[in-house]
């Protein structure tokens, strides 16, 4: 490989980062949606070097992992992994400290990037053995994750002063039962979506998008509109209220959670961080926010990195799956190139994030939070219609209903991940086909 070729590959990665920064602000759109379209285009016109496309995708996923945190803080358009961190970042926003929250998430992302760069060269033999050890047991590990997720829920209204015993019982159990209900309902939706395409067949690869928008983005925007929430003027600070120990602890917790999520099928950064947070006693808004920045970076980018690690070459995570259709890294130099591109893209993405956050802090004040929520709502509905036609809108509406249950009863949003956890767990355990047959889905 010549220096000129390497330069082109690195420029391609930076191009991908810029593309990732653009889609980070389009609500409901994910880096994987864009990657899916790019692969379809590449398959139709396979005119250029697939490694170049893989580098663009590397930049894209890095850019999205870093920059989309700004949109999630200011516009409340979190994806499945960021939804878990809504409360801390929402608190920052309501205190006029949205920019600080974005910086914490960004620093977490940089920490996650540094973690990946340090562990990547030694990951090959470890992951090689880990894969052999864990793969036959993944189904029950996933089952335990689900069990822990459900049983670690706590009663939101515990200690209320309902007058009757029945009332107090309901206070104690309402959110818990609602959480289980949301998990089961989203699991049922998942079983249907995995086995039947609700949206038109030609767009079935975007089958899950209307569901996620319905679970997450629509209920939150509706809540913003109904509650008439007022967001104060955002103060752009050049410092953050945190010390190095908190940042280091947040990064280490996030890196652990992100690594678990990147490696374990279907476990997202939100679930991984939840498990890692409980394991490492992560506490306080600073640690939480930094850890989620790190976790989602390690989750998104680390999963794609698994495809590049020599001897491992594991297609995990959305980008890995999508890219492996067109390209599979084969030799060690491609791995080093990927790591270099990841480092460069991460730095560029962080710089964009800082500028973008300052701009959005001002834009929020100028446009008004309710107007933005309304615009987001319209944009989300339009995107779902474009991706899934009227069937997509129906699916989105059903999932919005399920999403509103978790907001009404203040249960964890993570329960909506039943949409992926239930069907995949059942399939890995070997029970899926029988249940699907019993339900008449095949």
């Amino acid at each position, binding site marked *: 490989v010549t220096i000129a070729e390497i330069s082109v590959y690195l420029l391609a990665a930076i191009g991908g980062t810029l593309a990732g920064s653009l889609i980070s602000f389009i609500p409901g759109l994910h880096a994987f949606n864009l990657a899916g379209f790019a692969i379809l285009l590449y398959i139709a016109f396979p005119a250029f070097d697939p490694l170049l496309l893989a580098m663009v995708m590397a930049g894209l996923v890095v850019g999205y992992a870093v920059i989309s945190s700004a949109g999630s803080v200011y516009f409340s358009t979190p994806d499945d992994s960021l939804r878990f961190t809504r409360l801390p970042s929402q608190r920052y926003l309501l205190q006029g400290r949205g920019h600080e929250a974005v910086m914490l998430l960004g620093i977490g992302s*940089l920490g996650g990037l540094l973690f990946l760069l340090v562990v990547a060269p030694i990951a090959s033999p470890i992951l090689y053995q880990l894969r*052999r050890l864990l793969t036959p047991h993944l189904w029950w590990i996933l089952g335990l994750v689900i069990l822990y997720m459900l049983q670690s829920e706590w009663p939101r209204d515990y200690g209320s002063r309902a007058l009757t015993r029945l009332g107090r019982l309901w206070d104690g159990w309402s959110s818990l039962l609602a959480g289980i209900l949301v998990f089961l309902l989203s699991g049922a939706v998942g079983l249907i979506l995995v086995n039947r395409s609700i949206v038109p067949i030609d767009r079935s690869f975007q089958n899950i998008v209307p569901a996620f928008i319905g679970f997450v983005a629509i209920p939150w925007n509706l809540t913003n509109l109904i509650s008439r929430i007022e967001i104060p003027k955002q103060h752009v600070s050049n410092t953050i209220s945190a010390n190095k120990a908190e940042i280091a602890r947040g990064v280490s917790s996030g890196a652990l959670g992100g690594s678990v999520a990147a490696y374990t099928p279907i476990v997202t950064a939100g679930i991984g961080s939840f498990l890692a947070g409980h394991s490492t006693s992560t506490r306080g808004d600073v640690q939480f926010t930094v850890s989620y920045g790190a976790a989602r970076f390690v989750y998104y980018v680390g999963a794609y990195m698994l495809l590049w690690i020599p001897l491992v070459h594991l297609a995990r995570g959305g980008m890995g799956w999508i890219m492996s259709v067109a390209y599979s890294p084969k030799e060690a130099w491609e791995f080093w190139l990927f790591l270099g591109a*990841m480092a460069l893209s991460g730095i560029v993405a962080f710089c964009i994030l800082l500028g973008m956050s300052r701009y959005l802090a001002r834009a929020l004040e100028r446009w008004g939070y309710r107007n933005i929520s309304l615009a987001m709502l319209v944009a989300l509905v339009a995107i779902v219609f474009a991706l899934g036609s009227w069937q997509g809108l129906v699916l989105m509406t059903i999932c919005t209903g399920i999403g509103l249950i978790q907001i009404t009863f203040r249960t964890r949003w993570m329960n909506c991940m039943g949409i992926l956890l239930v069907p995949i767990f059942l399939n890995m355990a070997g029970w899926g086909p029988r249940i699907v047959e019993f339900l008449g889905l095949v």
Partner: protein
Amino acid sequence: VKTEEQICPYCGKPTGKLEVCTNCGADLGKRTTLKIALVIGCMIFAVGASFIWQIITIKVLPEVPKVTLTAIGEIDEGYDYAYVWIEGTVSGGPRYRAPPNVRLDFSVDDGTGKIDVRVYSEQAQKIVDENKMPAVGDVVKLFGRARVDPQRGRWITLDSAEKFELKRPEPMLKTIHEVVRDFPETLYERVIIENVVVINLRPLASADVYTLRDEVTGHEISMYVHRGLENLAEEIPPIKKLMSRLTVTAGVGEWDEKPQLVLNSFKDIENLGRNPLPSLIPLENIDEHVDNLVGIQGKIVFAELTHIKTKEDEIYRIYKLWLNNFNEDTVEVRIWGSTYDLIPKENRDQLRRGTVLKLYGKVSTEYGLHVELAGPPEVWILDNNERDIYEPPTFVDNLLTITSENAGEFVVIQEEVLEVEKRLDEYPEHVKLKIGPEGSPNVLVWGQIWGRIDEKAKPKTGDTVRVVGKIIEYRGDIYVQPGMPADVRVVS
């Protein structure tokens, strides 16, 4: 910690000289500038740049070998979806599917285990175009994605023809005897076998299996020719004839623990002409020619369509003919369904009672002395007018005289059907026609015969039927079993 600031640096609200902002709750004593991001960024840049530098010039980091081979025997569930390099000897294939959905399959053995390799679409076509079609005995090194599925087994999908290297060893001149005698040492060798003769062709669903014989030593070996190879051949040598003489270059594979030649291309076959067909022998002398290819001639006294079920639950059609030379010596001829299909249709239609014919087959004692029709079939219809004066088997009007001692004999019976008992939902499918007085044999019609009888011609209770059949003993009872649909006829 006291602070002199009047404005909270985080939310911009007045704080006085408090340690904690009363508006946002920020600890004003904890202040970290973005220098921390700069430091992390510099570290990231340094590490990233060192990786790029690693590619360009010096090896400052532990080098990961360019190609790390994985032992096939190690590929277990842990390798599902993993990319691996493997190196080994081609042990089976190639199986090629022609455009539009091109696919190439072969298997590789590296001494620790075997694995199937699949190549699809343009990558498969590229391998063909680059003349890298793998053959048994080739040494290959390839990179692909491993799949390990509890139900479907394990395989590797080759994504890139560029990551497929092939070395073909020089073939060695050997005789069939040497290949068979030295097996399994000869497994995966590339060999040239000179001057052998086709003594049988058995068409299977996906391949033709030839039996080749060394006319000097009498040793035989099978040769597997996948159907897809015909799509790759510019010219197919005329080898589909009994007694064709060939020189073959092929790899030595294994089938049923025996050596089997596996052809890679029709270019590897040299057609040397054709030997004369063997001479005819009297039917009464076939027991002196066991395992030999012989010609026989006779009149069909009974024809039967039947089937066998293998251990793997595969069902094969078998046609049986009984020939005699107008005397008592009746010889059974077995024809595999796939061989039967190679007989020209006009000749197939003549394979009925009364036809006089000449055919060539191998004498076998497996499941009773018989001749197995050799493929490609050489069946000559000598006289089909004989049928007009054909004398059917003995007519038996007293069914009670038929006992187990008559098993194997052919008879004609005519009786009223008392009951039709259909057992078409069990294996083997059959229909019983209950006839005659208590204790007399009934008629047993196999499902495939019953299904071929025209609906209107199927006997019903109360019909009088005339049946030409063979006396058999089945599950302890005696039956008259017709061989063909025409053997069952409703007379009133």
